[in-house]
């Protein structure tokens, strides 16, 4: 199991050091600093073995978090724990920075004492932790409150406490997708997938039972066979009017009853209070690619490049894409660039070796173009320019996978509010993930 956990600043000074196991000594703190933080070479692996001691590290801005062990631990668990640790810290005091860590070091030690026992991760749900790790002392609690805390921390529904009350029962569902594309210069899709998340903000009283439904192909097909017709599926968004989507794989927050999903493919759960990620999913079939990038790069002699890039939006004209940014890489020996674009603003950024073209808004089924002339310094470098791909960023108000929320039903038998009384909001946002076209 985890033998110790250290947090360093960018210089390698240790900010937090908590040792859980006897086999980890103080010298481990220095070993990591010397061999990893101060190493001259780029980090070649997130797991480093130094003198039979294994170090796992992640970096958040310029803060290093390192977990240390001498045993054959579950490596995936250690990384998951480190990420979780970051989440918990962020939930308590915001951004993970040197200043925040120093300002909260007592709190961090208290958290580390609670969420890691002898190197075994314990309940690390912020909702539960905040009930008893407060930095205020817990002396005033009554006996009932205490047992409520402990039963929540250890309980089957560790993520929600009892007795939550709202005057207005409300929930928000965000379908957030990131669409990834790798396209060849000739316009052939090399790989494309959508990784999506359903984020829920719930402000519901009591211990509500929820059921979530979407246009999952497997469910729809099953219902189709059963003879029940469904009223959903009329896609008013761009792309094809497909009724259901094939989900390659999905993972759920720990509140979802996985065995039920496995057997019936229904998603039922008691949600945590506030914001959390209900599910993640991935699709690869019938993806609506919101933009198409058509690059044209021509080398004119040894000292000049001509670049022309056309982007085409491919969704319903009534919808608007936002925050569009096209990044066209330029060679290292670029001496000057002239850019002409029809729409938006374009700039050559020498420090980033790229032409950045920004467009605030663009409706569907439109087209725009940029052309640039790149002057090159003559070099005797034999190595050819690697031509990194043209990448793109954007945000569109629909789900490129075609996912639709069909329902989210809420049942709370003990309290007197019904599904109809709950105010529900659904929003779809599609963003670019790694959206690249080779040129």
């Amino acid at each position: 199991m985890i033998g110790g956990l250290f947090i360093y600043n960018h210089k390698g000074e240790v900010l937090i050091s908590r040792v859980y196991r006897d086999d980890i000594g103080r010298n481990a703190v220095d070993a990591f600093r010397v061999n990893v933080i101060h190493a001259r070479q780029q980090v070649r692996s997130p797991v480093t073995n130094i003198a039979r001691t294994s170090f796992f590290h992640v970096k958040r801005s310029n803060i290093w978090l390192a977990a240390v062990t001498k045993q054959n631990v579950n490596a995936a668990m250690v990384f998951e724990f480190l990420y979780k640790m970051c989440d918990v810290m962020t939930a308590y005091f915001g951004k993970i920075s040197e200043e925040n860590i120093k300002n909260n070091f007592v709190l961090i030690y208290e958290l580390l004492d609670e969420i890691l026992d002898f190197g075994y991760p314990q309940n690390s749900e912020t909702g539960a932790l905040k009930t008893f790790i407060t930095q205020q002392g817990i002396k005033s609690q009554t006996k009932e409150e205490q047992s409520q805390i402990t039963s929540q921390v250890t309980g089957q529904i560790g993520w929600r406490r009892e007795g939550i009350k709202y005057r207005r029962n409300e929930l928000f569902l965000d379908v957030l997708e990131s669409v990834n594309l790798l396209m060849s210069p000739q316009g052939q899709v090399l790989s494309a997938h959508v990784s999506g998340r359903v984020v829920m903000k719930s402000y519901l009283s009591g211990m509500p039972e929820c059921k979530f439904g979407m246009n999952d192909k497997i469910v729809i097909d099953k219902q189709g066979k059963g003879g029940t017709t469904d009223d959903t599926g009329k896609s008013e968004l761009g792309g094809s009017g497909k009724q259901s989507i094939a989900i390659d794989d999905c993972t759920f927050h720990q509140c979802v009853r996985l065995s039920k999903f496995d057997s019936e493919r229904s998603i039922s759960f008691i949600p945590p209070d506030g914001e959390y990620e209900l599910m993640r999913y991935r699709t690869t079939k019938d993806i609506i690619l919101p933009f198409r990038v058509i690059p044209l790069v021509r080398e004119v002699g040894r000292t000049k490049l001509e670049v022309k890039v056309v982007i085409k939006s491919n969704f319903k004209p009534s919808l608007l894409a936002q925050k569009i940014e096209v990044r066209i890489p330029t060679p290292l020996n670029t001496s000057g660039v002239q850019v002409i674009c029809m729409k938006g603003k374009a700039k050559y950024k020498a420090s980033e070796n790229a032409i950045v073209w920004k467009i605030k808004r663009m409706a569907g089924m439109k087209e725009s173009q940029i052309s640039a002339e790149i002057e090159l310094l003559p070099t005797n470098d034999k190595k050819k320019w690697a031509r990194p791909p043209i990448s793109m960023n954007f945000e569109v108000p629909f789900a490129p996978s075609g996912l639709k929320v069909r329902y989210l039903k809420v049942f709370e038998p003990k309290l007197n509010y019904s599904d109809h009384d709950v105010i529900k909001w659904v929003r779809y946002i599609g963003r670019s993930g790694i959206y690249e076209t080779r040129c």
Partner: protein
Amino acid sequence: MEWASQLCENRGLGSKMTDSKYFTTTKKGEIFELKAELNSDKKEKKKEAVKKVIASMTVGKDVSALFPDVVNCMQTDNLELKKLVYLYLMNYAKSQPDMAIMAVNTFVKDCEDPNPLIRALAVRTMGCIRVDKITEYLCEPLRKCLKDEDPYVRKTAAVCVAKLHDINAQLVEDQGFLDTLKDLISDSNPMVVANAVAALSEIAESHPNSNLLDLNPQTINKLLTALNECTEWGQIFILDCLANYTPRDDRESQSICERVTPRLSHANSAVVLSAVKVLMKFMEMLPKDLDYYGTLLKKLAPPLVTLLSAEPELQYVALRNINLIVQKRPEILKHEMKVFFVKYNDPIYVKLEKLDIMIRLASQANIAQVLAELKEYATEVDVDFVRKAVRAIGRCAIKVEQSAERCVSTLLDLIQTKVNYVVQEAIVVIKDIFRKYPNKYESVIATLCENLDSLDEPEARAAMIWIVGEYAERIDNADELLESFLEGFHDESTQVQLQLLTAIVKLFLKKPTETQELVQQVLSLATQDSDNPDLRDRGYIYWRLLSTDPVAAKEVVLAEKPLISEETDLIEPTLLEELICHIGTLASVYHKPPSAFVEGSRGVQHRRLPPRAGSVESAESPDVGQSGPSEAPPAVIPSQGDLLGDLLNLDLAPPTATVPSVQPSMQMGAMDLLGGGLDSLLGGDIGGSPSMGAGLGAAPTAMPAALGGAPPVGGGLGDLFDLGGGVGMPTGFYVVPKTLWLPAMKAKGLEISGTFARRGGIIQMDMSLTNKAMSVMTDFAIQFNRNSFGLAPAGPLQVLTPLSPNQTIDVSLPLSTSGPVMKMEPLNNLQVAVKNNIDVFYFSCQFPLSLLFVEDGKMERQVFLATWKDIPNDNEAQFQIKDIHLNSDAASNKLQGSNIFTIAKRTVEGQDMLYQSIKLTNSIWVLAEMRVQTGNPNYTLSIKCRAPEVCQFVYQCYEMVLKN
């Protein structure tokens, strides 16, 4: 502490009160000041002071001098302060054990506190204080806490048992905490169950045979129920524990798999990977024709792909694991090639791993796409990545024949880029392609030759020289090219020198007229001016060969070479199996067994996959398993040790054998090439060629001196014949016919079959080594891994002459039983490493236990009686030996030949009862009663031994001896 002083200013300005100020303290008299503050009456001031102390502790200052003052602050209602004091205590208690005892009272009192959070805190902290005196006081509070009404306290107490065990294992056992811990597996609270499982698993690891985690269908059921209810971390503990269980049959296996599969949809990647581990392991037991087997295979792919959208560090862990899974079950991900395409922004460690998996998944169906990708990668910036991409193109060519042509043209394109390391890497792989597809792509040689000057790495130079030598007849200026290398002969690495020698000899044999001078030059450089024995030896061999029989030389040096295999970098199967059992863990990240990087006894248990469904092993599994051969250790066998780790790290030099001083670390392809010139050279000699003597006599004058160190060939031959005779020696010991231990496929052409024998009290391992490769093998050495009975080679492996292609040598290796001991599964398993000039190979074989039956194994009658009574009846195992048509005397005689001694015989109602004793080399006595009924071919055998796990193997010996 520069940052500290900055913050100090903030404080001076009276800015927001934050904790960071504690990191600052005035340097002079700081301890003194703190002391005063700690003893202050004001609570706030005390707390501030403790915070400062902790801050100093964090940055590594020694504040142990404040121990009594800090401990004084422990008695407080303020939980925050208490926690800080505890933190301090955990750090310094060990250095101040006498002072630490001051804290005990508070701990004991806190364990009775009405607030469960305080009770838990006390028991949690106490377990972290590694001071004996404190540990003593811990037992009572811990006992109470394990039965506390509050689950939060119980779950903390469960982990505390593991802590205590780490400090004082004996104490934990004596106090009966292990049983309480086992009871907690049935606790109503899932988190308590999970922590109990984690604690038990950890304790069990340091007691590999303790049967602590008594996993049976009932407990498994409890675990599976808790799995649905506990936290994500708890699910990991439970799944990792489940992975150690071996289901009884395929039905149980399937039902567990069914209950584990829902975990594949968990958001936590570690839960997913641990579930994958359980499924991969248990799948092994499912019949392949089962529908469910196919369903399961299909279910595994999507979650594995999903892991690739996790954060990069987790992607890396996932990819390392996928690399193993793809080797074990390529069918799972065969359609998922695209997801392994490298993204421009992937960290380099992710890129390199993806590349590996792409090659493993490359097939005729997707090769076009893969090649297009690889070509892109070869233009990237990172040198390692580019090299690997180029190498990958070569591997694709070798793996997918249809793509070879396209690969070659891609490689040629890359050579045109003139990027130095790309060119060198390309030449190395093109050489391999030539080996795989001879006489197909030689048209590219001209292009290759253009790049001769830019090659500065030994591997690339050696590859180029090989190409020039191999195709000397097609390269007009081959002699000039080779001559140019010869100028700096002594500055070249051994790899290049050997290659150059062979290439020039090849050239000479192809174009004898123009190159006589050149060949003489290289031979004299190699034999007279070099200190390297390998080089000298090879030089002499060529010299002699050329001077005696040029025709034979031609046959030898220009012999046809065997084709190289497709997959050269697969993980060795037993290691792969073990690593599959460690999916998700560090072992799977390092691709090394835990013993290679874990110190001490923890976690070094050798894990194996369950036997394959329907395989012989499971069909034959004895129904006499009540004594559970693998569960309790014999007293003589220490429980710790490591297995493959030893083999992996082992220094293969045997006690006395000669080992070449230079060990070129080359890839297999290159190695074969080196040997190419030596093909069947010595094979002809030893085969009894009449010209042998003459050949030796006609050797160059320098020869005897050079060979002085090595024994004469004739002597070696004599030894061989002796050994050949030795194999069949009649000693009464039944020798099993030789079985194949190491197939040539797995050992680059070396085939080993063998058996064991006991002759006159000496244990011998008889082996036949066959060279099925095309090159001569030399420098044999052998080593055993630790094993149950400490078998170890008593001398070096006596292979005195090089083993030429198609030659077989019988060797008999005397064994001692004084080697390091470690329990193996099965008990009679022996893991062997054999080294030759090419590589190190591993195999495992099983020896009959009768090998270890010593000659003085006859027990006194009285002793026998007393011992028989003394051994508990639980240790008795009964077996049936069927179809034996011998009377009791004949059987007894036969058994005596194998050192199974009959002490007494009794006849009751036509039934002969033979009482027999056996003594093993490690002084374990085995007592047996054999009942023989006249006219009944079935014997009944009862075996009693203090180490009951040997019974099964003793029974096998009986059966073997009696039936043969």
